[in-house]
C-alpha cells in the first residue's frame, strides 16, 4: 500500500466520520450509538491504511512530517471519539473531524514520497515509542485546545472537567515522550538533554501545560486565563512539532531527519 491509496481510504474514513459527526446532533434515541459506530468504523478504515502502509514500507512510517501527520489524524479522531463517549459533547466529533481532515488534506496535496531507507540514527528501540507516544499526546492536547476555544466562545459550556481529564492524560503522555527522548538522546548524542531547538520547544510546551495545572489550582475562578494558557500551550506545541522548519534559530536542529532522506 502506498501514498496513492491514501485518498481512497481517507475518503471512505471521511464519509464515516462526517456521518458520525452529523448523527451526534440528532435527537433520535439510537442516534448517538450509531454516531459512535460510524465514527469508529472510520477510524478502523483509516488505521487499516496505516497498517498496510507500514507493512509495504518495511519500516515504521514515523520518519517524515507527512508520516507523523498520518498518526496525528488517527489519534485525534480516536481522542474525539473517546471524549464523545465519555462526556457526550455533541460538537467534539465535528471539530476533531475537521482538524484531522485538514492534516489528511495536507498529506494528499503535498505527499512526501519516501523510500524504505531508515538511516542508522533512527535505528533504535526508542524510536517507535518516542514518536507514537508524542503523537498520541499531541492529539489529546489538540482536543483540549478545541474544548478551550469552545469554552472561550461560549462561557456557559462546562468544558473544564473534560479539559482536565484530557490534559492529565495528554501531559502524562507528553512527559513520557520527552523522557523516552531523553533516554534515547543519551545513547545517540551523549547527553540526556542538550537544548536542541526541538527539545527547547518541547520544554516550553511542557512548562505551559504544567502552568495550566498550577493556574487552575491557585485561581480556579479565572476560566478565561485558564483557557488562554491552554491555547498558548497548544501554539507552542505546533512550533515544537512542525513550526520549527520556519524558525531561523532552529536551522541546526539535530532533529532534522527529513532533510537527509529527501
Amino acid at each position, binding site marked *: 500500500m502506498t501514498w496513492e491509496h491514501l485518498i481512497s481510504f481517507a475518503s471512505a474514513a471521511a464519509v464515516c466520520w462526517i456521518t458520525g459527526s452529523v448523527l451526534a446532533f440528532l435527537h433520535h434515541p439510537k442516534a448517538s450509538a450509531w454516531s459512535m459506530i460510524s465514527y469508529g468504523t472510520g477510524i478502523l478504515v483509516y488505521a487499516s491504511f496505516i497498517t498496510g502502509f507500514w507493512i509495504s514500507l518495511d519500516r515504521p512510517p514515523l520518519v517524515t512530517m507527512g508520516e507523523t501527520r498520518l498518526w496525528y489524524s488517527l489519534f485525534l479522531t480516536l481522542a474525539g471519539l473517546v471524549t464523545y463517549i465519555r462526556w457526550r459533547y455533541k460538537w467534539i466529533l465535528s471539530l476533531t473531524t475537521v482538524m484531522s481532515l485538514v492534516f489528511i488534506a495536507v498529506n494528499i496535496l503535498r505527499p512526501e514520497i519516501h*523510500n524504505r531507507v531508515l538511516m*542508522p540514527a533512527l535505528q533504535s528501540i526508542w524510536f517507535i515509542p518516542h514518536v507514537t507516544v508524542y503523537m498520541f499526546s499531541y492529539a489529546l492536547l489538540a482536543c483540549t485546545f478545541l474544548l478551550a476555544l469552545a469554552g472561550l466562545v461560549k462561557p456557559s459550556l462546562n468544558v473544564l472537567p473534560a479539559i482536565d481529564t484530557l490534559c*492529565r492524560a495528554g501531559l502524562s503522555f507528553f512527559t513520557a515522550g520527552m*523522557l523516552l527522548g531523553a533516554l534515547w538522546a543519551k545513547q545517540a548524542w*551523549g*547527553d540526556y538533554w542538550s537544548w536542541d531547538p526541538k527539545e527547547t520547544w518541547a520544554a516550553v510546551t511542557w512548562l*505551559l501545560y504544567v*502552568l495550566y495545572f498550577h493556574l487552575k489550582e491557585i485561581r480556579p475562578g479565572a476560566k478565561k486565563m485558564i483557557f488562554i494558557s491552554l491555547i498558548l500551550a497548544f501554539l507552542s506545541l505546533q*512550533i515544537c512539532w512542525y513550526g520549527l522548519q520556519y*524558525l531561523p534559530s532552529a536551522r541546526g536542529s539535530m532533529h532534522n531527519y527529513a532533510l537527509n532522506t529527501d
Partner: protein
Amino acid sequence: MTANMHLFAFPVNLIVGLCIVFAGWSLRKRFSDTYMTVALVMMTAVALVQGFMPQEAGFTHSWPFVVVLTWFLTVLASRLFRKFSLAGLGLWLALWAGMLGSADSTVNHVLVPRDRYAPTSLSFEMRMEDFQVSRYDTGEPMEYRATISLRDLSEGMSVKAPDHDRPGGDVVKTLRVNHPVRYRGYQIYLRDYDVSRGNDTAYCIVMVTRQPWRWLVLAGILLLFGGALKIFIV
C-alpha cells in the same frame, strides 16, 4: 555573561546543591504556591529566549539562565517540602543533577587512526581495527560499524610495553550509531569517518564523554516517569 563551569567543579557544585536544598527547606513556610507559578512563568520565559536564539549563542550556559534555573529549583524544593509530588521530585532531581553535574562532565572528540594508537589527553588510547559501512540497495547507509581497541594508560607500565608483551591488555569493542560503548567510566560514541573513502577510511572520530552525575539524572528521569504515570492513572 557565560558562567564559568570550572568554578563549580566538585565539591563546589555539591555545596551549591545542598544550599539549594537548605534554602528550599528554610523558605518552605514563606513561599506560597503563587511563588511556584511565578517561577514556572520565569522558567518558561528563559526557555522561550533559548527557543528564539541560535543554539550557538549558548544562552543555557549564561548567568541569567543559570540564575533563573537555580531560583526555580529553590522554589520547587520549598514546594516539595510543603507538598510532595513524585513528578515534582523527579523533575527537581533531573534538573538539579543535570545543572550541577555539568560542571564535572567532560566531552572530547578524538580522532582514532587505523592500526596505530595515537596519544590523547585521556587516560586511555584507541586504535581503529576495522570500519564497515553497509548500505541499502539504494546506496543509502544502513549501518556504520567501527571496531576499536582500547588500551588503559593509567596502569603506568602499559605506555612503554609493546602490545605483544601484554597479552589481553587491550580491549576490543564495536561501535555503532545508537550503540555507545562504556569503558572505565567513559562513554564512547561513533561520530564521523572519512566519507570519501568509505570502508577504507584511515580514521574514525569518536566522542568520549564522562558524566559522573548521570545516575542521579537517570534516577530523576525514572521518578518523573513514575510521576507522569501516577497523574495518568489517579
